[in-house]
């Protein structure tokens, strides 16, 4: 059971600069464990200490945000494409207001 995982630029250092890697597992959680076995350090970047996906990391099963599926427990199947894309956010600062 292999799926393709798209890796964001800042994490490609861990995947020998590969933008896409193969991973195995029945769920997102299992996939992340499998990625960690092959690319040590990747799990702590994607997940917090409790194993939850970090707030600023979006994970998509094909084009669906897994937050709106079953999160970590979302089932994956052969041929699926997973994308890891850091959120784009920001904002002004009251203390810099003139």
């Amino acid at each position, binding site marked *: 059971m292999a799926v393709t995982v798209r890796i*964001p*630029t*800042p*994490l490609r250092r861990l995947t020998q600069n590969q933008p896409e890697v193969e991973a195995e597992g029945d769920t997102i959680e299992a996939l992340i464990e499998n990625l960690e076995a092959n690319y040590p350090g990747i799990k702590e*970047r994607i997940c917090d200490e409790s194993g939850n996906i970090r*707030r*600023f*990391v*979006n994970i*998509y099963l094909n*084009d669906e*945000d897994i*937050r709106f599926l079953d999160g970590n427990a979302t089932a994956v199947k052969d041929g699926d494409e997973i*994308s890891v*894309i*850091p*959120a*784009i*956010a*920001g*904002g*002004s*600062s*009251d203390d*810099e*207001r*003139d």
Partner: protein
Amino acid sequence: MMRETEVLELQSETLDQIYAHAKVEFPDECCGIILSDETQEFVRECRNIQNERHAEDPDTYPRNARTAYLIDPNDLIRVHKESETKDRPIKAFYHSHPNHDAYFSEKDKADATAWDEPVYPGAAYVVVSVYDREVKTTKAFAWNEDDTDFVEVPIHAKRDA
């Protein structure tokens, strides 16, 4: 040693589109992504979901859309797919600062960085200052490898030939 000054070249139509977006969303922050190929730029307006996240979880998201933005993850994947399938690299992200100046705030910097690295080292961040629905100033910032920080880069508007 002098460093060559980087410039962000943007088509004036692109700037007009993001100014219009900033005015429409005022007093909330607007946000979006600028894709480009060799000849054209493509402005992709995105939904700012900061108000929804703030309403759901104000402890985690203390700000609302007046002073923060979060690009809708559905828009983000859509634009990423367009970028990949149509070979239109991400040139810049943009957002507005309603009733604030055009600076790259500490929050902007922190959110443009993940795991102590710039998330999109090759993309610029355009910030539009809009006061009472009028655009005041626009500045752009990009990651500078030598400074290991985001620095301002001048914007050059160019008209189509």
